[in-house]
């Protein structure tokens, strides 16, 4: 994984590896350290590593060519290189997408998020690469009441292939704050959802389950479905 949000890094916090950072992305591309020196291996999974962003530099410190080269180097021995893109569509965005061969768009069912996602999809379409969609922070009760756009509404507007549906879950805030991704907790309902997303990325056909209308019973006992 590469944290491409230079100056506003966060992937290290979310992964709980912030205290292990020695070198960063900018130092790698400037040739001041080896790529392998900057890679931080996850505490829990041997096959998961992070290239942290630099915190006290800015996005202009890295060029699109340098990012492309770095991603290519990682792709030689990694099955997946996930690049965490900064918000916006400025230099940091262009760097983040430069080396990618496909894209995952994360949006929420809000008009402003969807309009921004639409603009980003437009920019990615110019590159003729696969773009897939994760809809985050769905609140099924609000969808049912007609107070929130449904998954179908969002997909209709964005016309991109759906990769996952993630409900709004307060647990995420807590696990993120603690630096423990929710997938580590097998009892967490979001863990199942992220595993399904991973399986779809692997090429498996995993059906989406309906989360549009959980019953009161499901809501109370926490068994409402998503995908």
């Amino acid at each position, binding site marked *: 994984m590469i944290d491409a949000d230079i100056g*506003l890094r966060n992937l290290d916090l979310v992964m709980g590896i912030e205290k292990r950072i020695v070198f960063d992305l900018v130092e790698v591309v400037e040739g001041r350290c080896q790529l392998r020196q900057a890679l931080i291996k996850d505490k829990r999974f041997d096959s998961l590593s992070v290239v942290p962003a630099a915190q006290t530099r800015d996005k202009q410190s890295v060029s699109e060519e340098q990012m492309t080269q770095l991603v290519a180097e990682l792709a030689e021995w990694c099955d997946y290189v996930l690049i965490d893109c900064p918000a916006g569509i*400025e230099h*940091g965005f262009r760097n983040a997408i430069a080396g990618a061969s496909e894209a995952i768009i994360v949006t929420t069912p809000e008009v402003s998020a969807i309009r921004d996602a639409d603009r980003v999809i437009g920019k990615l379409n110019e590159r003729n690469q696969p773009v897939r969609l994760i809809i985050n922070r769905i609140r099924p009760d609000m969808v049912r009441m007609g107070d929130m756009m449904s998954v179908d509404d969002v997909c209709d507007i964005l016309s991109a292939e759906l990769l996952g549906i993630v409900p709004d879950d307060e647990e995420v805030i807590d696990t993120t704050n603690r630096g423990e991704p929710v997938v580590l907790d097998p009892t967490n309902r979001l863990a199942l959802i992220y595993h399904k997303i991973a399986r779809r990325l692997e090429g498996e056909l995993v059906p989406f389950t309906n989360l549009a209308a959980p019953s009161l019973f499901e809501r*109370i*006992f926490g068994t409402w479905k998503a995908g």
Partner: protein
Amino acid sequence: MLQPQEIPQEAPGAEPQAAKAAIRGRAIVVTSGKGGVGKTTTTANVGAALAQRGAKVALIDADVGLRNLDIVLGLENRVRYHLLDVLESKVPLDDALVTDKRVATLSLLPAAQSREKDEVDTELMRALVEQLRERFDYVIVDSPAGIEKGFINAVVGAQEAIIVCTPEVSSVRDADRVVGLLGNRFSPQLIVNRVRPGLVKRGKMLSVDDVNGILRLPLLGVLGDEADVIVSTNRGEPVVFDPNSRTGNAYRTIAARIAGDDVPIPAPPAEEGFMGKLGALFRI
């Protein structure tokens, strides 16, 4: 190319603050570092609440390429020209300003949607904010996420800053970075958004004190995480126009505090609604 570390200083020859302050409005930038924490919603609601109090308010959407303030205000169909048209002197400022449907003292200068932030000239942006300050009591600039050129352009004309932060470590860290970049200008004040007191109580969410223990800023307001904000944002009807909305009331209090009223910050609503309470019971 400007670096984030280099927010341009006051324009050369700029008169001391006190000299003209009496006749010029206040320019306030709303920023956060992190995206999706509520900058645009805050800009719309604080602006509308100040306008409801009778102040003349201009809102600038500085998120060129990813504009949203027009949607949140429900004015997207009334946009004719945009920020870059004005900066490039293609149209007079008055032709681009969109007057709000509900409060006549509220105006919006929309961003361009099909242009890039790099096309905005920082000095022209500063001059534009100066120009607006002569006619409006408040000029509120909605900053884009991040700390790139768009951020620099959003802050360049401002004298004050409102930092919007959610009780998440990533948001707090980004806010801290932005406060650092702002340096000793802008007297930043903090709004903590999307606080869920029930979660804070159970130790599952950072408290306002936790957040501000790190940021150490004067606290301007605390907002709950309520569904009506999402609904109102989607409908283009800011919550301050709903007299019964608790979040609307919290925004009105923020506006009062900005205007100088000595009013206490209301606590975010403790209950999470019937379903939330039930859910909480079963999760313990």
